[in-house]
């Protein structure tokens, strides 16, 4: 009992963190109305997933639903999902932010502040009551980073855990398809040159190989399932439909490829683009017509459409890259939470404490993200400063490099696969906590460095006087 109490007192940071996270979420849960979007309804049935959606998020939903089916807790299923997202995933996110911060700065207080501040980023927390993949993606991404970093602490089985979590992550958010290769690659670049080669492979080689292997098995098995069931090899057929936002204007100058099927699909889509008032209807009509006229399946159309898009980009590289800056701007130079429409006033106002704090951070982050000089500061200057400041400690340097690499990986893939037409802001949500973590950590290190500098100066001054 004494031991337990002692342990409890020693864990005051975690208790305070989790208590606050749960308290805030109780407030949110009582006031929110679940956000059910057009995308949401495509995740509801795990057994009915097509090639567009991946099973990660439906699996999470099925887990929550199944527990509810066992114990008959609620018949308001969407509130139930939000409950799971708020109290399991949201609280886990806070905890992971705390642990990652603590590992990378060795400061419990800074980590506690980071964990607490996470709760007041409405841009991110707002997703916890939307039936969308974002919150689960954040949890999995943070978990992957957390367990991956533990490999270098010499902890057992972390390679296996990271591998499985990576698969869960990429099957929730296919953008992270390369995560299993990407993380070891960053390690090789950032960590390996500083350590002795033989020792490095002896210590970490097996864990990194396991991650790579499990990720590959994960990708291949879902791709194979799609091939067997839908004749589509790949984890998701969403990419071609995202790329079209870039290529819609290229269809007028489509040069025939010689492949009858591709040329016919391109011709149908071009016709539909001209006739449909809404570009989204052009795709719906393309699918209907290609099925009827060419007897193709959804997966076959998607596969062909992907090839057409790649061909169009290859034929029009200048036009493609001309659109990239607006895509970048849509991804970064933006700060809103429109998907929580109907809830915003409840959680960002001047009346109560939590909405007041939310409002403060919302305005602060909005300023940071929507002002070009501040954005440069946030995305370039601060991360570079941070990496310079921690360069001497190889483990810490490797950790921050890894986080920075994940941020930029998400950015590059998002920006190159979809342009501004779909508003890339949502794709940033997955790495938003990491962007801010790097920013705050840089401030922390600057403050720490400044304090040490002043202390040294004061000491040397007093020595001189004596």
């Amino acid at each position, binding site marked *: 009992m004494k031991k337990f109490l002692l342990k409890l007192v020693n864990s005051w940071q975690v208790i305070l963190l989790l208590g606050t996270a749960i308290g805030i979420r109780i407030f949110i849960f009582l006031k929110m109305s679940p956000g*059910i979007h*057009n995308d*949401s*309804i495509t995740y*509801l*049935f795990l057994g009915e997933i097509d090639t567009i959606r991946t099973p990660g998020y439906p699996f999470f939903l099925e887990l929550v*639903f*199944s527990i*509810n*089916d*066992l114990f*008959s807790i*609620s*018949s308001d*299923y*969407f509130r139930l999902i939000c409950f799971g997202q708020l109290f399991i995933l949201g609280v886990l996110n806070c905890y992971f932010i705390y642990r990652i911060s603590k590992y990378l700065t060795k400061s419990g207080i800074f980590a506690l502040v980071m964990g607490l501040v996470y709760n007041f980023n409405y841009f991110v927390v707002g997703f916890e009551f939307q039936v969308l993949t974002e919150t689960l993606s954040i949890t999995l991404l943070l978990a992957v980073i957390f367990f991956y970093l533990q490999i270098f602490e010499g902890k057992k089985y972390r390679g296996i855990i990271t591998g499985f979590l990576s698969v869960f992550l990429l099957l929730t958010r296919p953008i992270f398809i390369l995560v299993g290769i990407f993380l070891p690659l960053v390690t090789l670049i950032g960590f390996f040159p500083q350590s002795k080669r033989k020792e490095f492979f002896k210590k970490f080689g097996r864990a990194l190989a396991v991650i790579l292997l499990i990720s590959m098995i994960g990708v291949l098995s879902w791709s194979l399932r799609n091939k067997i069931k839908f004749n589509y090899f790949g984890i998701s057929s969403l990419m071609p439909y995202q790329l079209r936002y870039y290529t819609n204007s290229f269809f007028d100058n489509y040069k025939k490829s010689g492949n009858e099927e591709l040329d016919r699909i391109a011709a149908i889509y071009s016709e539909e683009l001209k006739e449909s008032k809404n570009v989204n209807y052009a795709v719906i009509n393309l699918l209907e017509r290609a099925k009827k006229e060419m007897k193709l399946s959804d997966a076959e159309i998607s596969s062909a459409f992907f090839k057409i898009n790649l061909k169009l980009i290859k034929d029009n590289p200048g036009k493609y890259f001309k659109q990239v800056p607006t895509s970048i701007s849509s991804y970064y130079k933006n700060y809103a939470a429109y998907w929580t429409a109907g809830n915003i006033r409840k959680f960002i106002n001047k009346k109560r404490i939590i909405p007041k704090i939310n409002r403060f951070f919302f305005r602060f982050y909005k300023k940071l993200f929507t002002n070009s000089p501040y954005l440069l500061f946030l995305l370039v200057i601060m991360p570079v400063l941070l990496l310079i400041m921690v360069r001497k400690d190889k483990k810490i340097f490797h950790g921050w490099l890894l986080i920075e690499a994940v941020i930029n990986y998400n950015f590059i893939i998002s920006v190159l696969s979809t342009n501004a037409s779909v508003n890339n802001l949502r794709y940033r949500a997955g790495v938003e906590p990491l962007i801010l973590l790097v920013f705050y950590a840089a401030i922390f290190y600057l403050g720490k460095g400044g304090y040490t500098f002043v202390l040294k100066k004061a000491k040397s001054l007093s020595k001189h006087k004596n």
Partner: protein
Amino acid sequence: MIFKSTRRKIILLLGFALLSFLLFIIFSHNYALNKTIREIGLRLTQIEKLSKLESQDYKVIFHRDHYEVYFFDAEKRKWKKSRGYKYRGDIFCQADEYEFIFSKGWLKTYNLKGIKGKLPKYVILYFSSLKKLSRPKGIIFYKDEDWKILN
């Protein structure tokens, strides 16, 4: 010899107990009933969203062992069957051929087999397990309004 420490033994025992408990509940009748009701509820939300997106009316017909979803084809002025869905396990609907017609997400009207004359203000559709008839679960449909699962 395989399990060296007591801690591992305890974890294994707890895991086994949890698994047995879960299996027991899964094979109990409530699980299948709850799952069926949940799937119907989610399906109704799903088709409501789809119908709003494509501006189509839709209807759901509940039979004893399955239900069917139809969308209204405005061009052909005809109901077009979308899909049929079976209930889980031995779950059955206590009513047969109850038809609920929705427009813009609201329940417009219903046709109930065997009931003629003025329509009631609401209909409760009961589902139960063949092995446990005494514990049904229902969905209430309000005319000109919405539907709700009765917990």
